[in-house]
């Protein structure tokens, strides 16, 4: 991921399961799945009708590690799995609302505890086997099982109370929640329904983790998504072919997907991806940086680049507020005295030139932010959140109130010093592979110089940066970015909660360290079980305001989602949610027809 190495990809699924403590009251005996010969119930998609056939080539940032959603941890695997698997209820990436998927309808009981899902008729896996409620039960049993060693497992142990799943008939499944759950049916998004006929045996033998490797023969793996595995050439490409049993159709009744083949080329870096796209080797490109976007838009021949608007990625500066104890250096303890002062943090925030960041880093293709809900999030932003303009005067006032003062050096430069007369100096860590954040750091360095703070920028390899922030906690401040995977607050829960692993300024606290962190914890937990959107929104707004008051994270900017496609690609509508361009892959088609599309 170009812009967001800090994706917490692995935790993405975990978050969901962390929130809902599933357990399964499993049926003791599995009867053979009933043969269902009922007529297929297509999900009819509105929108432009395309033509079938052809192959589409896109680049992938590297080789996916697995096709198995139970062990997929990296973004690349998830991108591929996304087009091979399907979920019961799906979030439409364009509207950010839920839509029927494998479940054609669902009902929620008035107390919000029972979800009754009705499956489509005539569903088949990509190998032609029928899919029914038994597969749903099996999938959730696997997700919850401890011996699977799925990444979900750890967090499932945390929960005391499980959700129960039971089957009413071959088409109907009931999910019983232990208490009302604000996220509601959104939790089903991304939870792939697994093929019981292929996985039951390995599951019982405890070998599920070994299934789904790329080198396996195609018939060992099946899904409900629009594509299935055809060929894998190590180090070069992954070829997927159309799933002939897919359950969606266009408004004319043609079975989707339109494309005959979808090819992922493994291209390890962003610039190389741009070159491949420019030379016509790939048909689509996503996650473009602003600079590459302007390079591409300057010489558009045969392709179009699109700015889909602000995404959900937020970039921020945060201070080391960990309780590092006595073993930390005196130097860090002295700095933490400044960092712990809310006025110091507010002063830094007021000195940040966010407009310059949007302009110089994102070339105006982004938005300044003052909280972690970006303008790309259509429903959850707090309209009352203050958006103060840059003001060095305000910064100086705040610093004065906090006991800081200035001295003038021999060259006429002023230096900020704390109440003990020590100069204010600290460093900002950035990931050395992320040019955008390095630029932000350089701008911040200059902004803060005007307050008399001496700031050094330290580019570090991302892994060692993460190690410092989450393990050794030897750092002053750091610039990072997180991309929410969904518009719902649920997706950022681990940033909000003081016990969360992504509560970056002081992660995984046993008890909230400050009053305001405790208050946020309370608000976030409360909104999770609130019944209506309005109730949740009110609580969430309050949490955003508390965060903005205390500024443990100084929010900087959010980049737009930039993507491009050849003019011959139809139904190309990039979304601001992942997967940015492949979310409607079943509707993508080649205008020129399959005969011209072969290379």
């Amino acid at each position, binding site marked *: 991921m170009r812009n967001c190495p800090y994706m917490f990809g692995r935790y993405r699924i975990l978050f969901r399961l962390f929130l809902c403590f599933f357990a399964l009251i499993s049926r003791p005996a599995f009867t053979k799945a009933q043969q269902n010969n009922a007529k297929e119930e297509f999900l009819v998609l509105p929108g432009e009708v395309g033509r079938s056939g052809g192959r589409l080539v896109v680049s992938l940032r590297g080789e996916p590690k697995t096709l198995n959603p139970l062990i997929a941890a990296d973004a690349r695997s998830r991108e591929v799995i996304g087009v091979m698997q399907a979920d019961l209820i799906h979030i439409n990436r364009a509207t950010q609302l839920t839509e029927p998927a494998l479940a054609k309808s669902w009902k929620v009981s008035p107390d919000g505890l029972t979800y009754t899902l009705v499956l489509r008729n005539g569903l088949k896996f990509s190998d032609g086997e029928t899919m029914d409620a038994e597969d749903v039960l099996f999938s959730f049993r696997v997700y919850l099982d401890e011996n699977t060693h799925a990444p979900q497992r750890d967090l499932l142990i945390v929960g005391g109370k499980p959700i129960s799943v039971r089957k009413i008939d071959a088409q109907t499944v009931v999910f019983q929640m232990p208490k009302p759950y604000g996220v509601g049916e959104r939790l089903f998004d991304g939870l792939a329904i697994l093929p019981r006929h292929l996985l039951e045996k390995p599951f019982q033998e405890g070998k599920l983790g070994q299934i789904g490797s790329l080198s396996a023969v195609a018939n060992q793996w099946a899904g409900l998504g629009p594509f299935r595995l055809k060929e894998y050439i190590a180090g070069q490409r992954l070829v997927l072919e159309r799933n002939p049993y897919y359950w969606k159709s266009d408004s004319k009744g043609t079975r989707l997907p339109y494309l005959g083949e979808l090819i992922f080329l493994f291209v390890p870096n962003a*610039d190389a991806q741009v070159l491949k796209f420019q030379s016509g080797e790939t048909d689509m490109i996503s996650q473009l940086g602003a600079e590459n976007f302007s*390079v591409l838009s300057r010489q558009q021949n045969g392709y179009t680049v699109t700015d889909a608007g602000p995404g959900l990625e937020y970039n921020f500066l945060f201070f080391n507020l960990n309780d590092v104890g006595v073993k930390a250096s005196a130097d860090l303890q002295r700095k933490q005295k400044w960092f712990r002062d809310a006025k110091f943090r507010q002063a830094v925030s007021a000195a940040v030139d966010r407009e310059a960041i949007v302009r*110089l880093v994102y070339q105006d293709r982004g938005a300044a932010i003052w909280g972690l809900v970006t303008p790309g999030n259509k429903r959850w932003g707090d309209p009352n959140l203050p958006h103060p303009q840059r003001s060095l005067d305000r910064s100086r006032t705040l610093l004065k109130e906090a006991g800081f003062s200035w001295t003038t050096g021999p*060259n006429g430069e002023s230096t900020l010093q704390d109440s003990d007369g020590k100069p204010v100096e600290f460093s900002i*860590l950035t990931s*050395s592979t992320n040019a955008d954040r390095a*630029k932000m750091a*350089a701008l911040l360095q200059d902004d803060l110089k005007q307050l008399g703070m001496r700031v050094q920028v330290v580019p570090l390899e991302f892994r060692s940066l993460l190690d410092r922030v989450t393990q050794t906690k030897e*750092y002053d401040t750091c610039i990072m970015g997180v991309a929410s995977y969904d518009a719902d607050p649920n997706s950022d829960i681990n940033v909000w909660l003081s016990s969360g692993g992504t509560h970056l300024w002081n992660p995984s606290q046993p008890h909230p360290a400050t009053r305001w962190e405790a208050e946020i914890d309370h608000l976030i937990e409360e909104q999770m079980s609130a019944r209506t959107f309005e109730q949740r929104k009110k609580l969430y707004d309050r949490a955003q305001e508390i965060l903005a008051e205390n500024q443990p994270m100084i929010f900087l900017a959010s980049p737009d989602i930039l993507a491009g496609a050849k003019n011959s690609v139809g139904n190309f509508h990039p979304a601001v949610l992942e997967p940015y361009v492949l979310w409607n892959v079943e509707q993508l088609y080649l205008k020129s027809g399959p005969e011209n599309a072969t290379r």
Partner: protein
Amino acid sequence: MSRRRKVAIWLLVLGALHGVVLCAGFFAPYDPVEQDRKSPYLPPMRLHFVDMRGQFHLRPFVYVLQLRPASFDQYVEDTTRPRPLKFFTFGDRYRLLGFLPSRLHFFGAGDERIYLLGTDAFGRDQLSRLLFGGQVSLLAGLLGAGFTLLIGWCIGAAAGYYGGWRDDLLMRVAELFLALPWLYLLFAIRAFLPLTVNPLQAFFLIVAVIAAVGWARPARLVRGIVLSAKERDFVRAARGFGASHLYLLRRHILPETSSVLLTQAAILIPQYVLAEMTLSFLGLGVPEPVPSWGNLLSNLQQYSVLVSYWWMYLPALIMVPFFLGYLGLASALQERAEAYKIQRRSFGSLA
């Protein structure tokens, strides 16, 4: 002597080039770290002498570059707004040669800004950054070469003069150093250092590493010369008269190495400037925002910069005259040394 003149000419050229870089504060119109956030990636302004009406002006001027509407980095000349260059104006504070505080600049445009070599991503003046960056890169090269030669000279002389096991030991160590993968060594050293290295520390680290790694080659050269020199008749004679080791080395042997050392210096300096650039390019050199030729070039690691802004290549071009100067000097020195040798040999046979 035309040979001597050749050396003098090259020295003059190099002196002038270094003088400009040394007085970067005076020749650069602005502070190299100052950001002009309204003009990122501004292309070099063209110097004009003739205005739109065809009138000639003795004082060169530029037209203000204006951002094309709805673009980020496309500028057009606004021909209604000429901006004349002013010479010997007062501007940003700097310290000449590192200690003389001054505000006098060679040229400027009063309160307005003028970018003869364009700007970078933050609107920093590329010309000022080039000149100040040269201070870092050239000084690293000079100091590095100086240390290298000093170490190489001492070790080479000791090995060649004393011979025996000392020679074996020192030369094996030299071979070890020749075999070291110095780039990775630097990565390793950097990993052990504290997280924040201030620019000065980073600079001396680079110099130390370059010098410590490069001494082996000059040491071997010096050793060879010392080996042959110590067997010369006049050295044997002096020894026979009871001269001490120190006297022999100082009076008779080491002077023989001077021409080799000078030539080596002229070759090593540009090599070490290049080494500094390589390290800074990879992010191991002086940290931003302090400029050096290497970290100026590191912008080119991005494809978009590579294809969009040609003036970002200038730090690569500016090395050319410097390197040409040093290599010219090296060959002139070499020639002079050869001639000197021939002269001496003919004198020797006459006597």
